[in-house]
């Protein structure tokens, strides 16, 4: 599994590098950062404007303070329609709030229609990547799965597997009572829900069922319809290295008089679920600029080794590690802010210039101040702090460490022992650095 994740993340990262080399990368990133910051500092105005535009387009607007409230809104819509089946477009927000479980609990058949989501739904696994949810699964994993579920050959080609999924889901699309999506962005002036994808399942999920429900995080707003042009291109270049997602849906509302198809009802659910808390944070509010492109995951040396499941919730990688404390609370998110080497690669690639390493450090400091760090680490840091302030004691401690037979000790320690099977620990110099330095100075 690790090699699949590493290879996929590297490939995505290489494609992003090529795509960003074709454009004025700094100019695009500055514009996107400033646009999202503008929205976040005028969010109440844009939420109200969007509400009016959506209503004028014939959409029904709902507000949900929590994830549970958002799920309730969707269940109530489904109950009013006596709906039995739902087709879902890939949406990280619905993963975040656990919508599928709630809908299934209410007796609805839920089908994830993105091919990656379809695969992990069959496997009963959570997504391991914001953009490629089944990225941790190899072709052979998929062959075995499709063989067991749909009877395809064990050596079936990827084309055969995809064609099988297409046939299975086509009838489900045509029969579904409800189509559910998230939103990449929502333009306040025209009330446009913007969705980016490559397969066509989002266009179909939002076009064929009689009712479409879009769940939208309140930070997804943009001021103007034409602002979408920059964000759509920037997100695609960061996520997959394409100039644009293969399909972009710009949805203004339900089918109008004279249109031959499209949903009769469109509902937009504005979801807070911790976002206003994050917005109030003096440092961490910048996280709300995130466009969920996944570029920071692809470039992260930790993510490449661990994959997404190690992070334990919907959002993984560096963005997940800074978003979790903001949305779930710091205590519930431990030790995610520590799951990083602070190498800074994530900040280099973020298309909206979120200072991810600084925010990781920020959450770490908050965690230490709130007593959430492990006792051993806290004690070690205290000893270090004391020694640093007392040069004589520091010298004695340094001598003591220098005298330790590190190689022999290391080979007896758990975990370290394994690491040292192919490595030797160099013995530190017995002489203190200051003494060595003085000798050199004297010698000159």
């Amino acid at each position, binding site marked *: 599994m690790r090699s699949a994740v590493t290879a996929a993340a590297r490939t995505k990262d290489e494609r992003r590098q090529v795509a960003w080399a074709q454009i004025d990368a700094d100019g695009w990133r500055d514009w996107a950062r400033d646009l999202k910051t503008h929205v976040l*500092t005028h969010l109440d105005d844009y939420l109200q404007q969007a509400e009016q535009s959506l209503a004028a387009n014939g959409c029904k607007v709902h507000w949900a*303070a929590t994830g549970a409230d958002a799920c309730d809104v969707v269940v109530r819509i489904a109950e009013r329609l006596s709906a039995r089946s739902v087709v879902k477009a890939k949406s990280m927000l619905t993963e975040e709030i656990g919508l599928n479980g709630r809908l299934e609990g209410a007796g609805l058949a839920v089908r994830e229609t993105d091919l990656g989501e379809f695969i992990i739904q069959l496997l009963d696994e959570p997504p391991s990547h914001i953009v490629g949810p089944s*990225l941790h699964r190899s072709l052979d*994993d*998929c062959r075995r799965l499709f063989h067991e579920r749909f009877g395809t050959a064990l050596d079936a080609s990827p084309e055969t597997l995809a064609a099988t999924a297409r046939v299975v889901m086509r009838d489900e699309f045509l029969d579904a009572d409800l189509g559910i999506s998230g939103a990449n962005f929502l333009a306040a002036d025209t009330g446009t829900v913007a969705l980016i994808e490559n397969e*066509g399942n989002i266009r179909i999920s939002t076009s064929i069922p009689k009712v479409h429900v879009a769940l939208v995080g309140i930070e997804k707003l943009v001021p103007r319809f034409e602002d979408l*042009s*920059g964000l759509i291109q920037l997100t695609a270049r960061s996520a997959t290295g394409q100039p644009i997602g*293969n399909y972009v849906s710009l949805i203004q509302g339900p089918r109008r008089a004279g249109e031959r198809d499209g949903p009769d009802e469109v509902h937009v659910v504005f979801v807070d679920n911790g976002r206003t808390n994050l917005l109030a944070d003096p440092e961490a509010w910048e996280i709300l600029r995130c466009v969920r492109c996944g570029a920071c995951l692809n470039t992260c040396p930790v993510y490449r080794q661990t994959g997404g499941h190690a992070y334990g919730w919907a959002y993984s990688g560096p963005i997940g590690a800074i978003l979790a404390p903001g949305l779930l609370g710091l205590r519930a998110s431990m030790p995610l802010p520590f799951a990083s080497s602070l190498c800074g690669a994530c900040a280099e690639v973020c298309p909206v210039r979120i200072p991810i390493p600084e925010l990781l450090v920020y959450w770490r400091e908050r965690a230490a101040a709130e007593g959430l760090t492990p006792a051993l680490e806290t004690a070690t840091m205290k000893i270090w702090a004391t020694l640093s302030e007392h040069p004589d004691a520091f010298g004695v401690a340094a001598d003591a460490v220098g005298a330790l037979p590190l190689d022999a000790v290391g080979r007896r320690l758990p975990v370290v022992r394994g690491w040292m099977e192919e490595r030797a620990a160099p013995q530190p110099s017995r002489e203190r650095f200051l003494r060595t330095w003085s000798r050199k100075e004297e010698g000159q």
Partner: protein
Amino acid sequence: MSPRNRILGYVRGATASRPRVPHPGRFDGRFLAGDDRPPVDRFVELFLAAGGEVERFADLEDAAQWLYGFAGDFESVTVGATVPGALRPHVPSTCPDLATLGISHALAGVAETGSLVLDSRDGRRTQLLAPTHVVFVRERDIHHTLVGAMVTLKADLPSAVGLHSGPSKSADIGQILVRGVHGPGRIVAAIVGEPGPE
């Protein structure tokens, strides 16, 4: 208090003391800035690179002649509501979920992204369900930039616009690219020169 007012209240409280940042202005980050070829040339390059097919015609008559031959290989077609009468082949017409060929008329094209701009008034199922999709677009309707196309589009928005920039594709099975997962696996941009279909 309603969830709406509570959320808006929290938002105001969170941002009250924060300096307000101005809007950065219209996005002008052009891909291939300085490339002064006609937009149709760049459109063709990108659309082909994304796996699409391109046919170019001098005029409507030329396009119709090609279509009648092309459509002859298909059992049934579904034709968009705004497709000009001349571009309706003599092949049995059926509902979009059964047709093997979909024919649509694009509102516009976009050079910098290689996109066809599709209008819900033309019919969404026709654009999405058939395995092969032919989209007619007038050469003069191809914009240089996406922002330019969107500013034009904004004056008369239908219930939904779809930007289609190549065949349906996915790499979710073992990171291997496959086509035609949900949408059409084959898409042909049929570009009509002057005078275009009216």
